[in-house]
């Protein structure tokens, strides 16, 4: 691919169709005997998306490899019988996250980090957080497996650009200093090795809690802003191109 940027200035590959051989990567993945987990949340009305997500993820996410799907939901009774591929496992975990979406956002990070500590670290090597309101339309394979992986949602080209996706309260903890920030990453699909995801979710959670303590009313994009701030200082080892990102508002 010569039409796109395939390497960041810190030498992390940017994954686009055509830049990799899935065969070679599959062989490497199998060589290392790895297990990958996906964590996703279906809270309140989002139970509606479960079937579509699970069906497509079961078919397209790391097809042929052993995947643990951890589905956190406050509507476990709404889950119809889902046919899973033989190598995949689905764990339905009931949760109560409160009715305010602000609490839900923080709960997600809290739940992911505490479950990593108590359970996931013993069950998987790599862990990915995905929004439930998506359907996979094509294979997402082991090209996503690396230490710290984020998905580009939009192209913020040069360091001179101020990140326009940032909110209007620059004093909030996650405000990026002017002139910084290269790529903008989406909070709807990120992951990596279990230790790295743990550090990331804890850092974002602490950032959000500090914002709340300082009286900042949370906006919907705050979780993503904390994610971006973390990734500015702990650069991803691999980036997924916008091919891997679905904007449900589009």
């Amino acid at each position, binding site marked *: 691919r010569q039409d796109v*940027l*395939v390497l960041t*200035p*810190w030498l992390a*590959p940017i994954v686009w169709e055509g*830049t*990799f051989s899935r065969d*070679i*990567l599959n062989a490497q993945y199998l060589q290392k005997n790895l297990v990958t987990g996906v964590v996703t949340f279906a809270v309140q009305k989002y139970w509606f998306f479960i079937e579509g997500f699970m069906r497509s993820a079961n078919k397209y996410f790391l097809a042929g490899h052993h995947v643990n799907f951890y589905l956190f939901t406050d509507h476990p009774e709404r889950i119809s019988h889902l046919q899973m591929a033989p190598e995949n496992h689905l764990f339905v975990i009931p949760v109560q996250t409160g009715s305010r979406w602000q609490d839900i956002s923080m709960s997600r990070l809290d739940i992911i980090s505490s479950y990593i500590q108590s359970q996931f670290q013993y069950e998987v090597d790599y862990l990915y957080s995905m929004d439930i309101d998506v359907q996979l339309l094509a294979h997402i394979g082991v090209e996503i497996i690396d230490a710290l992986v984020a998905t580009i949602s939009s192209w913020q080209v040069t360091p001179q650009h101020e990140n326009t996706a940032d909110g209007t309260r620059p004093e909030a903890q996650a405000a990026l200093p002017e002139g910084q920030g290269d790529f903008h990453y989406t909070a709807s699909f990120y992951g990596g090795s279990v230790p790295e995801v743990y550090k990331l979710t804890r850092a974002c959670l602490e950032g959000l809690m500090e914002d709340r303590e300082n009286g900042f009313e949370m906006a919907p994009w705050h979780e993503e802003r904390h994610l971006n701030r973390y990734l500015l200082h702990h650069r991803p080892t691999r980036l997924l191109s916008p091919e891997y990102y679905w904007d449900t508002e589009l």
Partner: protein
Amino acid sequence: RRQDVLTVTPWLAPIVWEGTFDPEILDSAYRPLNLTIGVTAFAVGKYTRFVRRFLESAERYFLRGYQVSYYIFTDSPQGLPPVQLQPGRRLVTVPIQKYSSWQEISMRRMEAINQHVAEVSHREVQYLFCLDIDMVFHNPWGPETLGDTVAAIHPGYFDVPREQFPYERRSSSAAFIPEGEGDFYYGGAVFGGLVKKVYEFTKTCHMTILADKANGIMAAWQEESHLNRHFLSHKPSKLLSPEYIWDDRKPKPPEIRLIRFSTVNKDYKEVRN
């Protein structure tokens, strides 16, 4: 950004060329880690004459500002010239036996490096580079080179079709690579990575070298052939472009914008005697 060369392998390992990376970003990521990087180099017999230029140029260009331990493997520790080192950098001589032929010396390197890692360097460094001594640094070699397993693309074969790679082609050798296989031709003069990984692959290469010895066969390019065999089945996590392993006898093509590390001109017959 480079569009004239391949910068990512099909297994998503970066290929490091001038213009693909920002040294400041990488420095800001690596400096806080307080790393010590080791370098092994073999100066046996007449090769001790290369030590001064190697070290002096390394002090100027190799991971400048980082802690570095140079492990010079030699059969004549007293024959090494004294070289002034920057703070945070040290020289350690590792006595080794001199073998009868240069090929033998070359092949024993894997064993020597492996043993030394096990006994000494695993405690002292986090990353280790294994370099040829008869070479000189001409431009910065920085933390862009650090990775789990690092190999360098041989300057003679980076723009040549794989059928022409000088892999070992005899199936009786443990370094055998059949026609139609192979990603790159890696040079034996530069390789490295995390010290644990270097331990693992030097051990594997040493084993395959011994297997060949037992079968009375020596691979076409000694341990370089075995290294290529290993890196075919266990692909490196990072590749260095020929900027990092140049041969000054070659004319410089446009893709090579910067020569960082290259051979010293020498009379091979005289030095290998």
